[in-house]
């Protein structure tokens, strides 16, 4: 009788306790629900942003490729010749050609704007004398050729402004040699480079205080492994500490000069970001149970109480493929040792990451529930000292910084993680 009353009392207490049991789920639960209920919206946000960025980069590339290089206007060149001839007097007048009337109203406007006060004959459709049009243009083109006769490196990705005319060439020959170069943006030459960048760094973290959790046994416990409901890190220790680890990046880039000092580069790189994290406690949502798969694995079952107390170092590595787009500025002559500064961004795709969480569903450690963001964006800032080895090759060495724009974790508001790396970038460059 007493046992029956005792049992009913037990069940009554259980029911009452169960009714009053309210547990706050972590934010990731609603994030997961929302992602499944509204998948298209979320996909659109990410893939739309990625597609828009890619389209923007492509449009920028096409625009820069088609945009003609700055060249002296033919009218301006003619006026310069005219002024030069005027300054030299009669002898010069013989050698120097007369100013050529511009062929179009636009040229006339340019002409007048460049040399105020100089009388510009009105544009006429007819040629004033019998000289062929090509011959009339020759002095202009010869001036252009003379201006570009010295090979000039423009941009860091480098090319040469046309071949140097052979000595003793006639103005006509020089003009002919320079003609194709004048109609094509000649300094838009490609360069290729291979780089290797060892680095090391930490991460910018924003996290809620780690939660000391009570630990439920994953499997029937044994006397040697009793369950502990009070195993929790000391309150003053809860949190993470970090240690740097070796990171690296390797890749190839192709560059295109935009002007005398500016250039942009793009390519593909493979990079591994690594650091070690000393963790006291555990993040909400982490599964703490499971077999020990690695000696140093994060919070394996039997190591939980001790690990929570002393902390556990675990290594986080993210292997990413990235397409960077860099814009740069060169200080100094490309023929000689010079300095360059470049900044840019890239879209990266996660190829592999260290397993972080034990998943009882698959009975293995993995990045559960799409926790790690697959597509991310990296910002780069590089400074390099370029040392030419020959006319077309150079080596570079300099410091570089990269910062991950989006948190490594998605749908996981408790922890924001933005790794950054500081390192040295060494490169070998070849200019076509």
């Amino acid at each position, binding site marked *: 009788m007493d046992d029956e009353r005792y049992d009913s009392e037990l069940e009554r207490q259980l*029911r009452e306790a169960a009714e009053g049991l309210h547990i706050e*789920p972590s934010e990731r639960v609603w994030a997961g629900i929302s992602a499944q209920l509204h998948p298209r919206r979320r996909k659109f946000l990410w893939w739309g942003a990625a597609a828009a960025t890619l389209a923007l980069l492509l449009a920028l590339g096409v625009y820069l490729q088609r945009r003609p290089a700055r060249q002296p206007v033919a009218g301006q060149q003619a006026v310069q010749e005219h002024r030069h001839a005027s300054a030299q007097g009669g002898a010069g007048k013989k050698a120097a050609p007369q100013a050529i009337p511009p062929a179009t109203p636009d040229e006339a406007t340019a002409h007048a704007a460049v040399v105020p006060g100089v009388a510009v004959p009105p544009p006429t459709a007819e040629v004033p004398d019998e000289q062929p049009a090509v011959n009339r243009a020759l002095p202009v083109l010869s001036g252009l050729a003379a201006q570009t006769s010295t090979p000039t490196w423009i941009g860091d990705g480098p090319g040469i402004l046309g071949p140097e005319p052979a000595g003793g060439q006639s103005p006509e020959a020089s003009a002919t040699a320079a003609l194709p170069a004048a109609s094509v943006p000649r300094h838009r030459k490609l360069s290729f480079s291979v780089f290797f960048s060892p680095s090391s760094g930490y991460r910018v973290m924003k996290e809620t205080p780690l939660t000391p959790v009570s630990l439920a046994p994953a499997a029937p416990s044994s006397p040697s492994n009793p369950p502990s409901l009070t195993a929790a890190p000391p309150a003053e220790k809860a949190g993470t500490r970090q240690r740097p680890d070796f990171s690296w990046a390797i890749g190839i880039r192709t560059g295109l000069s935009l002007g005398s000092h500016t250039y942009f580069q793009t390519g593909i790189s493979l990079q591994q970001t690594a650091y070690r994290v000393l963790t006291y406690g555990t993040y909400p949502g982490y599964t703490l149970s499971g077999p020990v798969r690695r000696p140093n694995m994060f919070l394996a079952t039997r190591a939980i109480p001790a690990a929570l107390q002393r902390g556990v170092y675990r290594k986080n590595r993210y292997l990413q493929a990235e397409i960077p787009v860099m814009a740069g500025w060169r200080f100094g002559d490309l023929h000689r040792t010079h300095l360059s500064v470049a900044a840019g961004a890239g879209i990266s795709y996660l190829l592999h990451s260290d397993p972080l969480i034990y998943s009882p569903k698959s009975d293995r450690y993995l990045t559960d529930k799409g926790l790690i963001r697959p597509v991310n964006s990296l910002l780069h800032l590089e400074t390099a000292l370029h040392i030419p080895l020959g006319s077309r090759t150079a080596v570079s060495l300099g410091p570089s910084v990269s910062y991950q724009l989006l948190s490594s974790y998605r749908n996981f508001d408790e922890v924001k993680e933005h790794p950054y790396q500081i390192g040295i970038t060494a490169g070998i460059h070849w200019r076509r």
Partner: protein
Amino acid sequence: MQRFNPYICPKRDNLLGNYDHEDDKALIRDCLRNQAAAQKALYERFSSSMMGVCYRYARNRADAEDMLQEGFIRVFTHLSQYRSEGSLEGWIRRIMVTTAINFLNRNKHLQQQMEIEQAGAIAAGGQPDDALHGRELLELMHRLPTGYRTVLNLYAVEGYSHKEIGQMLGIAESTSRSQYARARELLASWRKGQLTPRQQGDK
């Protein structure tokens, strides 16, 4: 000693959005229209209590959150089947219980039965040093093997009959009875063992 229990949280009153407790019909209507704000409001209203339901069946908090997520997705995708005959909370609770049972079956947790002798060793482990209250009783129940705990939950807390439990878990009715008896016996022995020193001290 006051022990920290992260699973118990204060109820939230300010997260219900524009829907009050009596306005279930409007909330359901908007959820059926796939409005994210209404779905969030429904989730906020019942998430903590349903997390408690899931946690009673789960092995740990992460499993409970998986169950909760799966259960709420079922709630939202099957909300049109709710007939307003019973309370909305009761309907959601039944979905959560079914989801939890399916989760345990899918992960074969229910098949991992445990001998009583082995379970007895659990009692020798962490024993609360204070008087047992409902919360501690739940913690003790949580230490039971999954099969025992599931049957105890379904019978003692949810109120299902052994026949219904047998159908739900795919076991014989007699098995459900024996599992429940063993669970009750184990729980009672743990409880008696912990109460004895206190009772002796009182004398």
